[in-house]
């Protein structure tokens, strides 16, 4: 039986302060790495910009969700009151649009909010039962008191030894490789 060789997911480094991580993120980017990810216990200001994160699709998905909710909400009330079950209420016109607005508004908000959350999850590839990063030895600290950066093996510039040395050069602690399974 052939022993299954585990593949390398990447190299992880640890920092004690968020500023060190932000600094490292800039350096990693400047060194030409593109596939790397930061892990922090709380949102670190300036980190997304330091990593060169660009705009994502969530605002557009939210807008589309809101439009679908609003038009759908108004359309459904219009259909119900004018075609499906027309009823004379206090002599008002069947298309009593002012009365439809609150529901339209609420549905706009509901659909926009849901599409924002679901769109964010989908773009992040969540839910994901397992991730190789959890194989990293000290990774539990990422939700407590340490700041991590992991350069992934799929990056063109990735060379296990070089990359590890590079991270150490950025004064990262506990630089180690992360296995894929």
């Amino acid at each position, binding site marked *: 039986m052939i022993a299954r060789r585990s593949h390398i997911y990447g190299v992880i480094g640890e920092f004690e302060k968020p500023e060190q991580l932000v600094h490292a993120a800039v350096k990693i980017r400047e060194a030409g790495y593109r596939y790397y990810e930061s892990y922090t216990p709380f949102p670190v200001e*300036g980190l997304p*910009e330091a990593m060169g994160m660009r*705009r994502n699709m969530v605002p557009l998905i939210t807008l589309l969700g809101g439009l679908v909710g609003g038009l759908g909400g108004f359309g459904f009330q219009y259909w119900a009151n004018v075609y499906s079950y027309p009823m004379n209420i206090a002599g008002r016109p069947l298309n009593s649009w*002012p009365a439809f*607005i609150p529901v339209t508004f609420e549905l706009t908000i509901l659909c926009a909010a849901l599409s924002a959350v679901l769109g964010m999850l989908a773009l992040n590839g969540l839910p994901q039962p397992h991730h190789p990063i959890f194989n990293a030895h000290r990774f539990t600290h990422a939700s407590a008191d340490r700041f991590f950066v992991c350069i992934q093996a799929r990056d063109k510039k990735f060379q296990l030894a070089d990359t590890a040395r590079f991270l150490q050069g950025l004064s990262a602690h506990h630089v180690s490789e992360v296995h894929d399974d």
Partner: protein
Amino acid sequence: MTAPDYMAPESVGRFEQRALGAGIAGVLACGICFFLYRDQFADRFFHSYLIAFMFVLGLSLGSLGLLMLQHLTGGHWGIMTRRPLESATRVLPVVAVFFLPIAIFGMKHLYGEWLNAPAKGEGSLSDLQKSYLTSSGFLIRAVIYFVVWLVLVFIFNRWSKEQDVNREDRALRRRMQMLAGPGIILYVFVMTFAAIDWVMSLSPHWASTIYGFLFVIGQMISSMSLMIAVLVLLSRTAPMEGVIQRRHLHDLGKLLLAFVMLWAYFGFSQLLIIWSGNLPEEISFYRTRLYGGWGVVAVFVLIFHFFVPFFSLLSRDLKRSAQMLPKIAVWLIFMRLVDLFWLTRPEFTSSAVPGLMDVAAILALAGIWFAVFARNLKTQPLLPLGDPKLEEAIEVHEY
């Protein structure tokens, strides 16, 4: 290297002179209107004057509201806008002088419906209205309103000036924050009564409890728009060049979007309740304003005061653009005038066409207002130099 003193650039002085010129032109145009309209002049003058007065009042009071809001909540946008806001609030004494013509000559031309209401029968007032809507009550209340606002303006400007000198005094910041909360409540409360007295009482038989809020939010919109325009203008030259960044505009744009939405929310709430009730006394407000020429104005307001700014301001790029955001802002200031026109004028005429008199009155009051505003801008540094968060607020970020 010495720290910059952030005093206003020369362009502010040029702006002051231009505004003053516009104001004088407006006053002269009012004079021309006097010969043009003769007998009708007094009526027409005060109908237009009320719009212009409520507009410039809103610029000062909206700024007072925003000033207290930024003391209460903090935030870098507040530090960037604080001095322009304070300058705008310090025009309030001039606005109080603008009220004098209404108080002395204008009441009978504006509020005849309750001044000369018949004692009995159609058009008569209820007992409560009879005790509230009296000319002496009207004047006494006006004095109280202005005193309350002027005291708030005085205190906040005073403390802010003290802060410039005494930079280490953290207690001062805390004091401003403590007063800002009650101050906002006081401002909204007093403005509600002022809106009832000065505008809603044009039609004394109609009442709406959200009316004051509509004015408050309208004032906030016009004042926030003014701040955006002023900051973008200032950012073109030293000393503010490079200090005002896209992230500041982004924050101001977000607030403007929120105010536009709130305005629509209040306006629609009033419409929905009155439309659902469909009672003869209440619906009269919309009967005159949603049909004929005024209906056209109503649709115009709906589209250009809400839909167009709303969908434009949703865009992140637009909110961060020093070219586009001030355009939307200036447009909203214009729409504030249209909104005031739509709120007040239908009480007097079914003709929804503005006249020379409207342009003249607005030019006169707004011109003078802006001239005093620019003059106030020159008296102090354009940034609150004593604010503990100033460094953080003007720190240059790439994003």
